């Protein structure tokens, strides 16, 4: 096959430019994406960044203002939703409240005019896939949130779409169920080798179930890559800041380049980091310091001196807010039972785990600093 399952080429969506009463809103601002067969790609980004709009354009519920959307190599811009080989799992589930669970799942098959025998077989199979055997005759209103979610998933899977679209499918579930369902969704998706686009604003969810993640902001894709790429090697400050629980940026200057390494002066220390392209000696850079890249050691040791501003104990970890020469930095120490613990106000040493720290060229007002 020389084409992609799904391909978006320079897709733009502007809302309201035909309605004269509202200012136009650029919801999607030139997005290009390619999904190969069986891949799960997640659109991740803050609320309002255009994830849902992008997904709805693939599903056919919004028409792109510009650009092309291809399914299996064919442009589908003008194909109405009911003729597209896509199936969507809606955030609100959108179950038909007047139909039984079975009828909900069978709906898409009926629309495809299948014979009643295969409808029954396929619908039952889909329901067993999501673990809902025996619930066929229930009304959606009588199901729990998790069960409704499964019905919605079965209803989309049963029509064997070329691409499965999921718009924050887990956001209405409680935390525990959410963690369980995302594993299940991923297993089913991999078992069926179903090309999927998944929308979420939850980075943990995105990282745990995606083949690749597209991080979006203001209708654009900031970075696209594997979960490791976007987390450990963020392309820019936005991605670096958005990923991870708490990120601190420390300024530095490149001192020397040395094979795979480069030495960067941070405050009054010079530390070795993995070398990145686009930087040369003398450049201003920013260190992306995640909380797990910071270690707290007894005073006198470590690279920098610091003082604990706040300490919070979580059992499996302890989280410190530390003052590092006037900059507040967060440290997360796993399994504190094995370590010294520090109180608020304690003087401590701070060590940076340089292998976990990514270096970005410093950007000032959109320009890379000289």
């Amino acid at each position, binding site marked *: 096959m020389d084409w992609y399952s799904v391909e978006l080429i320079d897709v733009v969506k502007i809302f309201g430019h035909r309605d004269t009463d509202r200012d136009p809103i650029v919801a999607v601002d030139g997005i290009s994406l390619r999904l190969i067969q069986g891949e799960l790609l997640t659109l991740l980004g803050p609320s309002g960044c255009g994830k849902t709009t992008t997904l709805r354009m693939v599903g056919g519920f919004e028409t792109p203002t510009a650009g092309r959307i291809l399914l299996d190599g064919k442009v589908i811009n003008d194909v109405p939703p*009911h003729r597209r080989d896509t199936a969507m799992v809606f955030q609100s589930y959108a179950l038909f409240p007047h139909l*039984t669970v079975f009828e909900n799942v069978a709906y898409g098959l009926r629309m495809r005019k299948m014979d009643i025998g295969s409808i029954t077989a396929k619908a039952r199979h889909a329901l067993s896939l999501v673990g809902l055997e025996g619930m066929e005759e229930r009304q959606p209103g009588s199901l729990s949130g998790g069960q409704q979610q499964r019905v919605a998933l079965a209803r989309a899977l049963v029509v064997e779409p070329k691409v499965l679209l999921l718009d924050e499918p887990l956001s209405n579930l409680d935390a525990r169920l959410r963690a369980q369902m995302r594993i299940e969704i991923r297993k089913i998706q991999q078992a069926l080798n179903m090309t999927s686009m998944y929308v979420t604003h939850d980075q943990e969810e995105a990282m745990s179930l995606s083949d690749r993640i597209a991080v979006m902001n203001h209708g654009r894709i900031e970075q696209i890559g594997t979960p490791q790429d976007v987390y450990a090697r963020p392309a820019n400050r936005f991605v670096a800041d958005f990923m991870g629980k708490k990120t601190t940026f420390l300024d530095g200057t490149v001192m020397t380049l040395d094979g795979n390494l480069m030495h960067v002066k941070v405050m009054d220390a010079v530390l070795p980091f993995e070398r990145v392209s686009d930087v040369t000696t003398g450049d201003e850079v920013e260190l992306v310091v995640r909380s797990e890249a910071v270690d707290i050691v007894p005073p006198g040791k470590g690279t920098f001196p610091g003082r604990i501003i706040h300490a919070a104990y979580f059992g499996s970890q302890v989280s410190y807010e530390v003052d590092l020469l006037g900059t507040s930095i967060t440290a997360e120490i796993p399994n504190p039972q094995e370590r010294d613990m520090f109180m608020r106000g304690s003087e401590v040493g701070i060590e940076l785990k340089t292998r976990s720290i990514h270096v970005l060229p410093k950007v000032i007002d959109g320009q890379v600093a000289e």
Partner: protein
Amino acid sequence: MVRFLARFEAELKRPLRRRQGSTVMQEPLVMLVIVAIAISLLLFVIYPLYSVLKTSLMQSDGSIGLGVYRGLLAKSYNRRPLANSVRLGAIVAVVGTVIGFIFAYCTTRVSLPFSGFFKVVAMFPMISPPFIMSLATIMLFGNNGLITKQLLRGMVNFRIYGLRGLALVETLAYFPTAYLVLSGVLQAIDPSIEDAARDLGASWWQVFRTVTLPLAIPGIASALLLIFIESLADFGNPIVLSGDYQVLAVQAYLRITGLYDLSGGAALAVILLVPSLIAFFVQKYWVSRKSYVTVTGKPSGQRVGRNEPWVRTAAFVICLILTGVILLFYGTAFVGSFMTLWGVNYDFTLANYHHVFQVAGEYIKDTLFLSTVATPITGILAMIIAFIVVRKEFFGRQALELTSMLSFAVPGTVVGIGYILAFNQPPILLTGTAAIIIILFVFRNMPTGIQSGIAALQQIDPSIEEASCDLGADSGTTFRKITLPLIAPAFFSGLVFSFVRCVTAISAIVFVVSGRWKLITVAVLGSVENSDLAQAAAFCVVIIAMVLSAIGIINLLVYQPWKRGPHRAPKESVISGGTEPWIGTA
């Protein structure tokens, strides 16, 4: 109507995907339906109004100008009906809203015994023919009235004809509008807000004054305006009871049917239209945007009845008095229909009913036929329009919605005059046919159906329909298999409403009836004009019986008690399923 108010606010706050993004261009069927609807609205809503306006500008010498208006307004006795109508409307609006509010408060905020009974009685005036209150009033307070003549023996010189009588009758007839609007608003106010106020130390009265009343203000303003519109449009009561207190709706009718002065009648109709439209637009675009109450569709747990005993006692007495008065009026009309000659001879007789079924049997037959044809057309068309307006994006959508809602605000008299002017000559010669009556019924009764359809649709998450499309159903299939079943309660209550309106309509229909097609309300009007009150009362009782059987039959069809399965979607009775449509001008 209450959801109708909340809708605008919801729209302002959440402009996001109310409709399917698929443009109409991709769906030729939808396109076709929209064009067909637009043409019929132009033809049967706009064109008649245009004809009225045009005729009113036709001067006696054939030229176009304001001559007719100048001539009319030059004479002070011609100016009086406008002032009279507005004054009557204002009085009825204020008194009706006060009563409606008190009644709504009593039934939603105080736990009372028999509150279900009170609510049902308060709805009576909405399902009865327009004359019945006036008839009962004359029977009780007229020159030969039971109270004025028999009880008081003429000791007080009391004239019921005129402003006093009209205000009484219309207040009783239209307070239910305020009751419905305001009980909706009061129910939508989260009781925990009031609890919070009590918790902070406010007495019942302080809670009422500082929390409940302020939150209800937009609803109160709506109720005032809606009753004002209804009173302006009222034709049935004034023609019986106005005496020499002339009102516009009746004067326009008399000018056309009595004086054959088409231009003059049309001009009076335009003058009547102006205050109605002003009130309508103020309500629609201003008052409804001020609403604090957002209807979430999830009424927060109705908790009522933690009031002081004196509040409950007072509320109970008020409800008792109000329902007592309503029942007195209906009882009088009912009893009167069995009397030989009210006021003179109180002997029991069945002669009036004999007349209804023998002589006027045709009236009943025609009425039933025309209403039965018009009702399903109205219901289905209303749901289609509601669906298109809510879910589809197309050029002129707002104009289409506004036009389809317009006849809500246009007094029946104006519509009736418009129809005789517009359709009495080729190319569209409809005068004297059943079609003109059916069309009039459909386009008069549709707006309320559309409104309740819109309200119902907005309760449905658009992604439910999108899911259907996504799974391969086209627009038509989605509408039939998903949308229609979900809006069925609104649809059926729309059916009941439009049937009721068909068999009780008079103000517009009186212009288009003919020798060939006879309507029962017109027969009542004839009896009233012959001063045969008992006969008129018998007609009214028969009309009410027809209305009640229709409600019964449709309820039966919806519930289908003989069929027991999981798919009996509507869980509410057809009346409680959508109270909004029960508001409108006669």
